[in-house]
């Protein structure tokens, strides 16, 4: 029978909703730039269910049993790597992790050769962190399986943005309309970029507060309000996200000293008093206590969501691995 449509045939209709078959119609998770609100909501809804699962005694649902997940980290990381590893294991995946020390990149192999090698081992999900912006996208162009960006250079860190969004949604009820302040080393931060794109997509009002040396050029064109003073930036804020300040920023003449940074941009109770009373304080970790955040705020369980963020991280990564491998598990919808 010919599959060619004749004039008499009815209009073809998709027998699935949405027409693409998935509310997350992407092969990879490379970033939050241009991600649509439906896809984000879809991932967050699934992650919400995993949060409940992770709080039970039996945390593993082997829906991804038999699938292989490779965590390839070209840059040192403990928390993100652990989080991805636990997420994979809780879905029943065979999880293998590899860090720079043991990889052959040091022996001069190019990224695309590494991709070729990995491809031959037939993984089903590849989680990559790399020190160069755009490296994960380049790798994904060569890979057959789903590639998840666990941070590339200063470009993107999408799972961090998703877990931040989930934390905000659970604490505040919604993301839309919240005034969210991101403060710290914006210029060198992939977390800031992914968060800006995602929060903008979800209708939040994003403000950046940082010294001019730590803000990238033309950042206001990304749809954010830019402040340099903490009291102005924090005025009426619902959420404050602090970013980690790398100690080596003193070398490039970005800042004079940590002491001075803490004085003007460190989050203290006094500065936080400009924000709303029920302000939520977040930090992607690891924290520099007494540099970008005062200890009493970090440890204030009512306002600080820093521990919760780590918990959400596992759930969000489970959701991402789940969604990106669904096409391999046809019929076993969960």
């Amino acid at each position, binding site marked *: 029978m010919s599959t060619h449509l004749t004039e008499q045939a009815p209009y073809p209709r998709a027998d699935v909703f949405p027409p693409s078959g998935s509310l997350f119609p992407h092969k990879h998770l490379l970033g939050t730039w241009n991600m649509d609100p439906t896809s984000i909501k879809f991932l967050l809804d699934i992650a919400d269910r995993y949060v409940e699962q992770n709080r039970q005694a039996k945390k593993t649902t082997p829906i991804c049993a038999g699938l292989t997940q490779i965590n390839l980290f070209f840059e040192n990381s403990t928390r993100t790597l652990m989080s991805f590893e636990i997420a994979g294991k809780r879905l029943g995946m065979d999880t293998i992790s590899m860090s720079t020390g043991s990889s052959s990149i040091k022996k001069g192999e*190019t990224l695309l050769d590494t991709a070729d090698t990995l491809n031959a081992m037939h993984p089903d999900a590849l989680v990559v962190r790399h020190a160069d912006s755009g490296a994960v996208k380049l790798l994904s162009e060569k890979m057959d399986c789903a590639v998840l960006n666990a941070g590339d250079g200063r*470009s993107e860190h999408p799972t961090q943005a998703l877990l931040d969004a989930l934390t905000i949604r659970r604490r505040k009820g919604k993301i839309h309309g919240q005034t969210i302040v991101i403060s710290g080393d914006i210029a060198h931060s992939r977390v800031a970029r992914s968060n800006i794109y995602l929060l903008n997509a979800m209708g939040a009002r994003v403000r950046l507060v940082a010294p001019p040396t730590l803000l990238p050029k033309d950042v206001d064109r990304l749809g954010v309000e830019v402040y340099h003073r903490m009291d102005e930036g924090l005025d009426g804020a619902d959420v404050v996200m602090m970013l980690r300040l790398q100690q080596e920023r003193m070398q490039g003449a970005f800042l004079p000293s940590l002491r001075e940074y803490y004085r003007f941009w460190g989050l203290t109770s006094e500065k936080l008093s400009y924000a709303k009373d029920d302000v939520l304080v977040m930090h992607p970790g690891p924290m520099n206590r007494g540099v970008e955040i005062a200890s009493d705020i970090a440890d204030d369980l009512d306002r600080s969501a820093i521990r919760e963020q780590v918990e959400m991280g596992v759930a969000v990564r489970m959701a991402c691995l789940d969604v990106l491998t669904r096409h391999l598990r046809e019929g076993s919808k969960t």
Partner: protein
Amino acid sequence: MIKAFINARLIDPATDLDIHGSLLVENERIQAFGANIDIPADADTVDCEGRILCPGLIDMRVHSVDVAAALAGGVTTVILQPDQTTIIDSDPIVERIRSRSVGSDTVSVYPMGAATQDLAGLQLAEIGQMKQSGAVAFTDCRKATSDSQVARRLMEYAGYFDALIVQFPEDKSLAADGVAHEGEVASRLGLEAIPSAAEAIQIDRDVRLSELTGTRLHFALVSSREGVEAIRAAKKRGAKVTCSTAPHYLHLNENAVEGYRTFAKVSPPLRAEEDRLALIEGLADGTIDTLVSDHDPRSVDVKRLPFGQAAPGVVGLETLLALSLSLVHSGKTNLMTILRSLTETPANLLGLDTGKLETGRYADLTIFDPEKPWVIDAEKLMSTAKNTPFDTLPVQGQVWKTIVGGKTLFTQET
């Protein structure tokens, strides 16, 4: 044997000649040309069918001698940059490069010598000896000579030999490890960026040094509005400075690196749209003197890498003329300006014996059809690598014949 190119539109930017006529070549040299000249009966006649016949194109900045690509692009003379495997910083190397193209049927190659030893910007290279051996200018190529004292001495010393110094306009410490233009795109992609000011600052300093030493100075590649403005101001003051730009800066802006496209990674980086428009204006009003291809064949091995690690550079010899002509077709400038920037001006700057239509001059000629449409296809390029950001771009104006020393070395198949 006399060769006659008849029924051609003869254009010579040096004399503003633009007539319909013929040109005769005898023994490698132009014997006669004009509207009504007698064609000897036994001449080997080529009917140009109304195509433009102009002096052979001179490309002032190539990083590799890519003969097939040059000839296919109508380029008869290439100026090789000193950043070769063996850096061109002494007279034997200059002689070796010159000897390869002298007396053989190939594109003419003139090297630029290193301005400082090892291109390191610390000690002067042997400018006098290299000049005698045939180096046409001196440059540190991809880096500016950043030490002001060294740059000053360099200009003073080169001035004695009347050697042209070519400076790369980019302040080293402001550029640092930058790979893209400092603007919205680089901020979003998270790439290390170079501000436009890095260019203007270098130009301003070197113009002062040129005025101090009285030496003429050429800027290798201008990419920004600030750069064009700095040169315009310097020329207005009467400084002896000139500059080049390349077609990719006239056609592309920072958006080309979207998606981390390393084929659009060039040095200096592609800048904002306002910079692109300012460059076109600068070319039209004569602030920018010459057009170069900055031809730099790079294999996929060094291009298919994360953006920060990938090598900069594009191939440009074959697309130089067509991309330049698009400014004529779009009415931004006129044909004579474009051809002058590719023939007479570089010949004058470098003291070459070509670049003009003149009886008795070496017959380096390019014949092209300014209207003919074609599509740039990376796979069909003759160059040794295919790293062009212009793949699949439709352009207008195609080289028909490239003639070096009276010999037709390239003919476009029609």
